[in-house]
């Protein structure tokens, strides 16, 4: 089991004729993802690695019953691509594109809400249900199927953590990248709620950062969760007021400090790893405990 996507997800790749789109479309197909069509205005009627290309998302939906999309369209055109996907009724829109103006992102999210659809990103590595479906640019080797849900703001850090879990024999149900921009479609809470409801997820790893208050809000939600949550937070050493790459990774106005996040999460019963390599062991302990305490009522870790 997985959240948001699975082996039946029928995927469009928007911007498939660009370098990045073409490259990752191939990797997704190799992983087993059902990439049913590509979209690239003006290139309709052609093919990319055997994938049919259309001018519009609507055509891809009409002909192939697509249900999700991965967007590699350059930033100036990404708003239109996202709105097109949402308007065509796609339920999961994964916006890989970096550099989408924040005003555009706000419009996209408003439309997604009206359409009751999920936007992952922008500026995300995507999401993967190991062994089933990969919608994004993450390195496939890092993942294996299993009972742990992972949700992260940041890409490479989450690859590192997923790879460590995999190496330790702990697979993942789904790994979701929220995206590094200030305005993104999903919050930690949105994803935690889905993991909590997913029979295939027995524990969750949450990879947060300084800045914003998403982790504090997650802590509130975690209080009511049955699944154990292990957290790691980056940015402990970051000086206040400095923007560290991500739009979100900035401490401003005394909010979103490392300490406030750790405190909130700890109070919610989350195990907070001080160093990344501690995560695997904490997850192992959590799974063992969850398996013990929930054998009668919850999902079993395989």
């Amino acid at each position, binding site marked *: 089991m997985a959240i948001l996507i699975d082996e039946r997800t029928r995927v469009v790749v928007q911007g498939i004729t660009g370098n990045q789109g073409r490259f990752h479309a191939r990797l997704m197909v190799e992983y087993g993802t059902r990439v049913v069509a590509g979209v690239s205005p003006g290139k309709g009627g052609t093919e990319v690695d055997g994938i049919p290309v259309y001018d519009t998302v609507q055509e891809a939906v009409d002909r192939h019953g697509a249900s999700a999309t991965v967007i590699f369209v350059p*930033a*100036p055109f990404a708003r239109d691509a996202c709105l097109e996907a949402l308007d065509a009724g796609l339920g999961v829109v994964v916006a890989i594109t970096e*550099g*989408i*103006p*924040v*005003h*555009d*992102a*706000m*419009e996209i*999210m*408003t*439309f997604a809400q009206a359409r009751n659809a999920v936007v992952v990103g922008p500026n995300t*590595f995507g999401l993967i249900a190991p062994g089933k479906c990969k919608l994004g*640019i*993450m*390195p496939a080797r*890092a993942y294996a199927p299993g009972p742990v849900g992972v949700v*992260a*703001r*940041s*890409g*490479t*850090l*989450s*690859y*590192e953590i997923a*790879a460590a879990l995999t190496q330790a024999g702990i697979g993942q149900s789904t790994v979701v990248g929220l995206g*590094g921009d*200030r*305005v*993104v*479609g999903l*919050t930690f809470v949105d994803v935690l709620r889905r993991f909590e409801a997913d029979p295939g997820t027995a524990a969750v790893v949450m*990879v947060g*950062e*300084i800045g*914003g208050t*998403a982790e504090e*809000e997650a802590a509130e939600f975690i209080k009511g969760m049955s699944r154990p949550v292990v957290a*790691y937070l*980056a*940015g*402990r*050493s*970051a*000086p206040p007021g*400095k*923007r*560290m*790459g*991500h739009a*979100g*990774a900035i401490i401003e*106005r005394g909010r979103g400090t490392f300490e406030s996040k750790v405190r909130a999460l700890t109070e919610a019963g989350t195990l907070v790893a*001080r*160093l*990344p*390599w501690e995560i695997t062991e904490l997850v192992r302990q959590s799974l063992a405990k969850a398996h013990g305490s929930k054998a009668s009522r919850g999902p079993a870790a395989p």
Partner: protein
Amino acid sequence: MKLYEYLAKQAFAEAGIPVPPGRVVTTAEEAALVCREVGPVALKAQVLAGGRGKAGGIAFADWPHEAEARVAAMLGKTIHGHRVDRVLVEKKLTVQAELYLGIAVEGAARKPVVIASNQGGVNIEEVPEKAIVRRLVDPLWGFRPYRAREVARRLGLTGREAGQVADVLHRLWGVFRRYDAELTEINPLVLTPEGPVAADGRLNVDDYALFRHPELPVVEEGSELERRARAMGLAYVQLDGDIAVMANGAGITMATLDILQELGGRPANFLDAGGGAGVEPMTRAMEMLLEQKPRVVLVNIFGGITRCDDVARAVVAARQNCGTEVPLVIRLVGTNEAEGLAILRENGLDAYTAMQEAAARAVALAGGPR
């Protein structure tokens, strides 16, 4: 991109928001001229640093010679690391009351938020929450005039004044949209006998949206080094330690700094080479780090999109180009790991697999934990 106050005010004025009469000057003589035209003036150094008032960046003058002298003293001065090249010379206002009006992107709500207070002129963070009016805005519907009137009412304003302030706030929304702003503020909006005037203002434009604003001048922020890095498309932040760090991705880079600190080391910088950067930009990035002559450089790469052989090539090239003896600690795993390690070894370098070991080694080379 943060715009200087005078540029923010130009944007306000274009949108029909009243600003004090005056203009920006680059010489003391011009300041005297402006003072002759408008009477007693405020003199404001155009730097992007906060707290410029306490640092001598704001002064007043009643007479032209006074304005000239004070601006002469201000120009060339350095305020919080920023050299003063321009001074905004504006008519001094008769202050009846000061308001705060701001519009920002509220990430959690994924919407713009209008923030207003009748306690203006101070840092908005210092205003008690109950004196602040907040309104989320649907980005499609926009912030319509009636909503501005409702905010003005909540500020306790009535009659003509309420209408004038609502009008300013509604126009500020226009500025926010027109300039793809992350944040725009009027603080304070001064209520004068002649109506409200934007006495100070901010306009921070979304960097991602600059392609839509070729009309804007480029305002460079940060240290020389940070600017250089930005020109190369890298995210670089100068820190005060001695272990230079290069990693790929903001999260892993931050984590690397955290680990070094945890182990007792002192990172010299934040440098995110990005996911999937090629040989050339990574070489430039490495060169930049080496030029700073840190005690040690730690390269921490988990190759996903980034290919380990590219990283190895960049490290080798930068080292050769700089001819430096700064010790390198490299951690390299992931895509094309074997090829990368081979390249390093050909050049007499080695790499760790575990982040933990690499970080510990870097701290040791920098002189051990402190």
